[in-house]
C-alpha cells in the first residue's frame, strides 16, 4: 500500500495519492449513475425509453424540448404548481422550524429556569420518536379540526424539529460566550436586544445549516402530504410525481399518452432547486454540519 509514502509526504499533502483517487473516481461514478441516467433518459420519448436502446446513452432523437413542453402543459400545467407548492411548504416549514429552534435553543443554552432539566430531557427523548408514528393521530386530529387538505396540514407538523433545537442548543452554548452577553447587559441592553444584536450574528452558520436541513426534509417529505392532501392542486412535487406514477400504472388512466417520459423529466427538474441550494450555500453548511457530531 501507499500508506508509508503518504505518511512521508503528509505535511505537504501533495500528490502520490493516485490509488486513493482512483477509488474515489469509482465512488463518484456509483453515486452519479442515477443522475446520469435521469439526464439521458429524460431526453427520450416512450419508444426511446422502452424500445431497447442503451440505458446510459441518448437515443437517436433527443426530445428535451417536446418533453419539457409536455411536462409543463400536461394536466393543465399542474407540474409548475407542484413545484411552487413544494417551495412554499419548504419555505414556510423551514423558516418556521428554524426560528423556533433558534429561540428555544438559545433559551435552553443561556437560561437556567425552572423546569429546564425536565424539558430538556423530554426534548432529547423526542429526537428519537419516529415522526411517521405521529402521522396517523395527527391526521385524525386535523380532520376533526378541518385542517386536512389545507397547506397547514403539511406546514404545521414540519415546524416540529426537536433535533434542530438540540443542534442550536449545542451551538449557542459553544459559540456565544457569556462574557459577551454580560457586557451587553452592563451596557444596558435588554434580554431581547442582547439576543438580537449579540447572539444572533454569531449563530449564522448554525442557522443556515438548520434551515437547509429543515428545507430538505420538508422538500423531500412524502408520507405526510400523501396522507394529508387529497386535492392534487395542493400536492408538493414528490406526491405529484407519485400520482403520475400511479396514473401511468393504471389502465385507462393515462389515455393515449405515455407518462413515463415526463415522470423522468419531472424527477430531474424537481431535484435541481435543492442541488443549487446546496452548491451555493456550501460555505455555510459545511461548517454547520459539525455541530452535534463534535463534543
Amino acid at each position, binding site marked *: 500500500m501507499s500508506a508509508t509514502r503518504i505518511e512521508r509526504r503528509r505535511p505537504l499533502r501533495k500528490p502520490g495519492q493516485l490509488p486513493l483517487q482512483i477509488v474515489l473516481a469509482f465512488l463518484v461514478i456509483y453515486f452519479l449513475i442515477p443522475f446520469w441516467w435521469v439526464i439521458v433518459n429524460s431526453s427520450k420519448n416512450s419508444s426511446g425509453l422502452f424500445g431497447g436502446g442503451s440505458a446510459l446513452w441518448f437515443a437517436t432523437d433527443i426530445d428535451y424540448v417536446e418533453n419539457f413542453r409536455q411536462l409543463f402543459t400536461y394536466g393543465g400545467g399542474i407540474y409548475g404548481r407542484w413545484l411552487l407548492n413544494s417551495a412554499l411548504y419548504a419555505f414556510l416549514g423551514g423558516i418556521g422550524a428554524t426560528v423556533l429552534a433558534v429561540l428555544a435553543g438559545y433559551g435552553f443554552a443561556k437560561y437556567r429556569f425552572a423546569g429546564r432539566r425536565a424539558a430538556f430531557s423530554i426534548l432529547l427523548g423526542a429526537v428519537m420518536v419516529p415522526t411517521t408514528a405521529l402521522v396517523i393521530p395527527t391526521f385524525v386530529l386535523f*380532520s376533526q379540526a378541518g385542517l386536512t387538505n389545507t397547506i397547514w396540514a403539511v406546514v404545521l407538523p414540519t415546524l416540529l424539529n426537536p433535533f434542530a433545537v438540540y443542534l442550536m442548543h449545542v451551538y449557542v452554548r459553544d459559540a456565544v460566550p457569556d462574557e459577551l452577553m454580560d457586557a451587553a447587559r452592563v451596557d444596558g441592553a435588554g434580554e431581547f436586544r442582547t439576543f438580537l444584536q449579540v447572539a444572533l450574528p454569531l449563530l449564522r452558520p448554525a442557522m443556515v445549516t438548520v434551515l437547509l436541513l429543515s428545507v430538505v426534509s420538508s422538500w423531500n417529505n412524502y408520507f405526510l402530504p400523501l396522507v394529508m392532501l387529497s386535492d392534487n392542486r395542493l400536492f408538493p412535487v414528490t406526491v405529484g410525481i407519485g400520482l403520475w406514477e400511479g396514473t401511468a400504472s393504471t389502465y*385507462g388512466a393515462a389515455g393515449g399518452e405515455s407518462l413515463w417520459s415526463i415522470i423522468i423529466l419531472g424527477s430531474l427538474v424537481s431535484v435541481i432547486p435543492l442541488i443549487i441550494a446546496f452548491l451555493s450555500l456550501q460555505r455555510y453548511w459545511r461548517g454547520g454540519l459539525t455541530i452535534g457530531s463534535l463534543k
Partner: protein
Amino acid sequence: MKTRKVIAAAAALTIAAALAACSGGDGGGGGGGNDASNCTNKITKTDAPIVTLWAWYPNMELVVDNFNKDHDDVQVCWTNAGAGGDEYDKFQTAITAGTGAPDVVMVEGDRIAVYQIQDALVDISGYGYDDVKDNFSEGAWKDVSVGDGVFGAPIDGGPMAMIYRKDVFDQYGITPPTTWAEYETAAQTVKDAGGPLFGDFGANVPAAIMALLYQNGAEPFTYDPAGEGEIGINLNDDASKEVLDYWGGLVSKGLVGTQDQFTPEYISGVIAGDYATYISAAWAPGYLQGAGVGEGADADVWATAPLPQWDPDNPVDVNWGGSAFSVTSQAKDPELAAKVAFGVYADDASLRDGWENQIIFPLNVNVLNDPEFIDLEVGFFGGQQANKEVYVPAANGYTGMNYTPIGQFYYTAFTKQIAAINDGSATGSEAADALQDEVAAYATEQGFTVK
C-alpha cells in the same frame, strides 16, 4: 364515542390555538372534496348548485365540459385525486375521517361493496335509476349493485379477451387457442421452438385472476347486506384450485412470465416481443398504444381473439375493470349528485370521444348496438374489427360478478399468494388454501359470520 369527540374537540382547540399563534389564523376550507373552489375545470354558470366529482378518465375535462354545457340546474366541479389505488386510499381516508369526500366518486365495480358496507355510498335506485335502466345490460347493473341497492352508474367495462402477436403465431404455426388446454399446448410449442414467453401471470393483477377463477365457475364471495353480516367465502374450491394450479404449472414450466403488469418493465417486455399473448380486457389496446406498443416495425403485429375457455360448449364471458360513478354519503344533495352520476359521461359526444380514442369500452347499450362502433376497424389491431369479432359479444355474454366488502384485504392477500406461486414456494392449491384461511380469519375478525 362521546369521550372521543370531547378529546378531539379539545385537541382541535389546541391546534387552532397553535395555528393562530404562528400564522394569524387562516382556518382554510373544511376539507377538499366538498370545496368547490378547487375545480380543475372552469365553471361558467356560477349561480347553479355545484356537485363535486373525483374521476381519472383521461378525457374527463371534455366530458365535464359537455355535461356543464348541457345543464343549467347543476354544474360539476371535477378533480383528479389519483388513478385507481391512489384515489381509493384518499376516498377511504375521507370516509373514515367523516369529511373530505366528494359528492360523486369514480370507482371500479369491484370496490363498490367495499364502500357500501361502510355506508359511504348512497343507494341511487330511487333517484332516476328507472330512466336509465334500459341503457345498460343486466350484468352491468349487477356489478354496481349490492343486494337490492344500486350504488353506481355504470360507465365502462372490461370484457376479457386474448390479445396476441400474429407474427409469433405465424412463425410457430399456431392458431389462436380456444381452450386453456390448447393455450398450454401452444405455449409449449412456442417454447420448444425457442420462442418467447406465451403470457404473463402478474402478482399485481388479482382482479384479472379473480375473473379467470369466475370463468371456471368459482364463486369466491357471496354477500347480501340484508343477510346480517353473513358472508360466503369460497377461495379454495375445486374450480379455483384448478385455475391456480393451471397457471402455477405454466409458471413452473417456464411457459409464462411472472412480471408485474402495467410497469415499465412489463411494457418494455411487451414492446420487445417477450410475450406472445396478453390475457386482458377491452381497454388494453388503448393502454398498450399509449405506452408505445405497436409502433414502427410492430405496427400491424397485434390481433385479438376471444378468451380461451375451460368448457368450449359452455363458454363463460368475464370482465376485468371498468368503472362507475357512485354518490357518496357525504354528498350534500344526494338527488342532485345522482343526477350527475347518471348524467356525466352519458351523452353521445362524450361517449364517442371515449371509444373513438380508445379511452373506454362503453357499457351503454346504445353504443354497443351502434353499427359504427361495432364495425370500427381498430388501428392497433391492424384494422381488425375487434369490437364486432371479440369485445361486443363478450360484453353481451357477461352476466356480472359478486364482489366482496372485504375486497381491499382480499386483493392484498391474493397478491401475496400469487407471488408465492410465482416464486415456487406454493402450488396453486396450497396458495388457494392459505388464501381461504387468511381471508376467512380477517372476515371473522371484522365481525362477519363466515358461511
